[in-house]
């Protein structure tokens, strides 16, 4: 099979085409206003947090799991981080790094709890993470009385506002590093290979001596850690916790992962696809604003793309399966 054939079979490549078409259409409609560096800088800033979460979600969905709790874990972690930083006081990096550590620890703790309940207690991931979604958000509200904490150290908010690394604003840069690292781990390491194997055939993975439970706990723990990192980025971006602002984060991230070609049934997917899947809603939103269409249409468009993408992917895969039995017959 040639490289071109192989690429054309990947959902992420098709959906990249869709993204290119959207960009071209908006460019024709709005010209320079849409194609400007400023616009794309804004778009990348808007998806930075989701990209970090999307890396973890891609791993989870490839194992044929799901994590609905990431938004709440992000909120909880940012509340814990903000509390820690407020208690220490000061605006410097030493305070901020304590907050970052607290956010990561909190994320890992929630993720590990999810993984433990899914892998060891064998409760369906949908139920487990629906539960922790509610518990984490509830506890965050208990800790704060439901009122956002606005005292975020300046060093953290300045990170978002002023800092650029090799010409890229800080938040998208952190997201980019996370995405690249995630892709390397998923596609090049044993951890990634086991993630695919477990999603593809969990019994086979177990029979081949893979410690499935430990690996799943690791995957959910990783997702939690990335939600913790997302909490830091969100604090940096908004300068406040966002207790009420993350209720749709999980669904937006899941939609992006699925649009990007990661199968909800497990066993296949890519980080690259997830990134493309994140850009589509973000570009639609930005484009609609620029050409003066009400941004409510973004939801309509994204939902339609989601369902259409999965439909196209499924029918293509069904054709491949039929092809396997007719054209790929054995030479005996």
């Amino acid at each position: 099979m040639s490289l071109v054939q192989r690429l054309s079979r990947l959902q992420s490549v098709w959906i990249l085409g869709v993204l290119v078409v959207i960009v071209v259409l908006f460019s024709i409609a709005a010209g320079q206003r849409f194609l400007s560096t400023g616009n794309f800088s804004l778009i990348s800033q808007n998806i930075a947090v989701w990209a970090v979460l999307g890396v973890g979600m891609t791993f989870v969905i490839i194992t044929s799991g799901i994590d609905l709790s990431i938004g709440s874990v992000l909120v909880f972690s940012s509340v814990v981080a903000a509390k820690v930083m407020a208690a220490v006081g000061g605006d410097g990096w030493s305070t901020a790094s304590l907050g970052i550590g607290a956010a990561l620890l909190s994320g890992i703790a929630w993720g590990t709890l999810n993984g433990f309940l899914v892998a060891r207690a064998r409760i369906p991931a949908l139920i487990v993470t629906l539960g922790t979604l509610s518990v984490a958000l509830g506890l965050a509200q208990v800790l704060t009385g439901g009122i956002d904490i606005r005292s975020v150290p300046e060093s953290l908010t300045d990170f978002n506002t002023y800092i650029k690394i090799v010409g890229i604003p800080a938040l998208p840069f952190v997201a980019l590093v996370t995405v690249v690292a995630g892709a390397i781990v998923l596609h090049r390491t044993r951890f990634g290979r086991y993630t695919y194997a477990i999603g593809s055939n969990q019994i086979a993975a177990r029979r081949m001596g893979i410690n499935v439970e430990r690996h799943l706990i690791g995957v959910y723990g990783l997702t939690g850690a990335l939600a913790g990192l997302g909490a830091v980025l969100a604090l940096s971006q908004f300068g406040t916790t966002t207790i009420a602002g993350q209720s749709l984060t999980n669904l937006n991230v899941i939609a992006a992962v699925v649009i990007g070609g990661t199968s909800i049934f497990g066993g296949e997917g890519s980080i690259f696809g997830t990134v493309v899947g994140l850009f589509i809603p973000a570009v639609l939103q930005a484009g609609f604003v620029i050409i003066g269409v009400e941004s409510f249409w973004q939801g309509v468009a994204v939902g339609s793309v989601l369902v259409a993408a999965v439909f196209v992917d499924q029918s293509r895969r069904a054709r491949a399966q039929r092809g396997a039995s007719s054209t790929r017959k054995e030479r005996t």
Partner: protein
Amino acid sequence: MTPLLEARGLSRAFGHVQALDEAEFDVRAGEVVALVGDNGAGKSTLVKALTGNLEADRGELLFDGRPVSFTSPAQAFALGIEVVFQDLALAPHLNPVQNMFLGREIPRRGLLGRLGFMDERAMRERAEAGFRDLGGTVTDLTARVGEMSGGQRQQIAIVRAITWADRLVFLDEPTAALGVVQTRHVLDTIKRVRDKGIAVVLISHSMPEVLEVADRVQVMRLGRRVAVFEGADTTVEQLVGAMTGGIR
């Protein structure tokens, strides 16, 4: 001669079903043993218990005459025991090479290897050699296993097992999904593996196949071993009689 692997009084119940009832089993180094029995006689359960895929309620296992107990497949792998399951235990989204090395990936040298990076090239080369030796129909090692035919999948599972087995291979119905030519391949492979000094346990419903390759035949019925025959001077009638309980 001490058996390579021996089971004594192996029992396992699933609810009210006594799948294994004081089952005995033995296989000697370098021989082909066929394990036959009617559906539900306990053959697959016995194989699972002998390979670390199922814990027995009672009974003991001896490997090279020493007592062993397997709580995971990895422990059986470590002793050089491999299995080809009826369901093949392949990941359909992975390619043949990835399946062959699943759980046993070759790490890259040095620090990268310790970080979990894999030596894809070394794995592909070893896999190519394995499939060449089998001489089968698996030619595209980069396609997904899920898109291959039943016969090709079977070959992948068999190549994987005989690549890793140093001492003993279990084959659970290895020819059930195969055509005439491929069945021939598998039977030849079994003989070749035995000639390398690796013992083979063959589970099969095809009595002519069993009598062709087996040095000994062990018959199971209702969770226990009811008869052992020498392969050379046994007839299909004798085997069927023992399986159904018609002849004692």
